[in-house]
């Protein structure tokens, strides 16, 4: 499992930058980021190197921040691999709530992170299909 942080942001110029500024000042490294298009407010999700400290810094700076689990999957950088992984989950009747990918990792295979309501089952179907799951320490 990988811990992600979720931060409440308003849909306004500069609101995401304020989050990254706090993290930069705390010397926290951002590995993955995602937001999606919402009218007034949204949730910015990040995978960082030190989630607990990231939450602490953000909370101190007035952000509503939550740490929660997501599942990481390492994919070979080849055509069709994402499709293959999603097919495994679909065949296992696993619902993916959201998915996002890591920023480029020098010399390493790409990683997708996703959220589901049934991590146990997701882990099982992926492991059965020989898909490599990524743990936090490996990032």
């Amino acid at each position: 499992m990988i811990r992600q942080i979720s931060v409440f942001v308003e849909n306004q110029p500069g609101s995401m930058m304020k989050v990254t500024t706090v993290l930069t000042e705390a010397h926290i490294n951002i590995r993955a980021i995602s937001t999606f298009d919402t009218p007034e407010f949204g949730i910015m999700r990040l995978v960082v190197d030190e989630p607990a400290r990231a939450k602490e810094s953000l909370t101190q700076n007035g952000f509503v921040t939550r740490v929660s689990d997501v599942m990481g999957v390492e994919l070979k950088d080849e055509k069709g691999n994402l499709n293959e992984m999603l097919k495994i989950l679909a065949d296992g009747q696993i619902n993916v709530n959201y998915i996002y990918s890591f920023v480029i990792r020098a010399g390493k295979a790409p990683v997708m992170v996703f959220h589901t309501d049934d991590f146990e089952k997701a882990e099982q179907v992926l492991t059965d299909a020989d898909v490599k799951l990524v743990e936090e320490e490996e990032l």
Partner: protein
Amino acid sequence: MIWAKEETLPRSEIEAIQLAKLKDTARYIYDRVKPYRDKMDAAGVKPEDIRTLEDLRRMPFTYKADFKDHYPDGLFAVDKKEIVRYHASSGTTGKPTVVGYTRNDLDMWLNNVARIACMGGASADDVAQISFGYGTFTGALGLHGGLEKIGASVIPMSSGNTNKQIMFLKDMGVTLLVATPSYALHLGEEIRNRGIDPTKDLKIHIGLFGGEGMTEPMRDEMHRAWGDQFVCTQNYGMSELCGPGVAGECTQLCGMHINEDWFIPEIIDPETEEVLPPGELGELVVTCLGKEALPLVRYRTGDLTRLMYESCKCGRTTCRMENLSGRADDMLVIRGVNVFPTQIEEVLLKIDEIGPHYEILVERKNRLDVMTITVELIDDRLLDSYAKLSELEGRIKSALKSQLGLATQIRLVAPNSLKRFEGKAKRVTDLRKDGL
């Protein structure tokens, strides 16, 4: 047409009626309503002390808070079985302000509304569409009953559903519209947008407006939307006093005539509570005369206005009140509905996921009032999914809807983003200018 001869009596006769009824009222409330008796005892005034109209000043004031303290019917003077109708309006908190009517009260009320409809030019020939929301508010059923009394044909349309409103206006040959002025403007523009010209395609020629004030710029806009033939008047009332029917503009458009044989108006300085001379701007205080179910003495309306006693070209001799100049308190009128910020606060404080700070923004968009309430999100558990955030937004909206009877917009913001106040908080921003 002038509906009642009492509207044209010489001042001395109006005052004689007022004094006789005031004496009866003082005796009636002292004998029948304990909260009044307690207040009068505390003020050291007995019914027999009321000998002249000036003596009214010795009587204690009645406040909106008295309705809350004696909720629901502690201010009533008659037994439940005498009541034939209840209505209710906004309270300052969760509980509404409940009012009741005996059969005589209803008759008095609707006669007073009939007077106001006549002031605005209505007659038995009119087909009237009531576009106020029905329900417990007094506006719709008040105008409905008053217009029926003068013999007009009444269509109880209620508010909303613009397409149906327009269909009835057209197909039924509606001549008279009852609405809030902002809704009438909205409707007028929607009609134009559909390529209908009210001056040619409709028979409409009278607008009777209430529920919120109509400014002169709004009246000008009303003529642009509906045509110059459209005679727009406004009227005044509040459910505590009876509902609509307290005062109305005649077609001379020089203030609203108060039905003085049923209501004694006073203007006071809201701070010092001192009675001000005629012509001064201050808070309107109204004493109801001859009400059976819910007598009301020196009621603090919270509305700021002036009184004018010069007689009017229309032939009425009753005193006129000027267009309202605002409120002595923080009450807002949103789409004709009275809203107290305390009502909103009460709802918000019960929702754990948001903080205690809030801001209220009122704007008029497309002629209609829009109220946006900004609150701070404090519970990080909601960040698990966007659905949880929208569920919270929906829950706040529906709690406010059931409290206020109004739809609101909710804006969620990060903690500490709203302004903090050290003294009196200024949480309301009203961007409406001249009601436009």
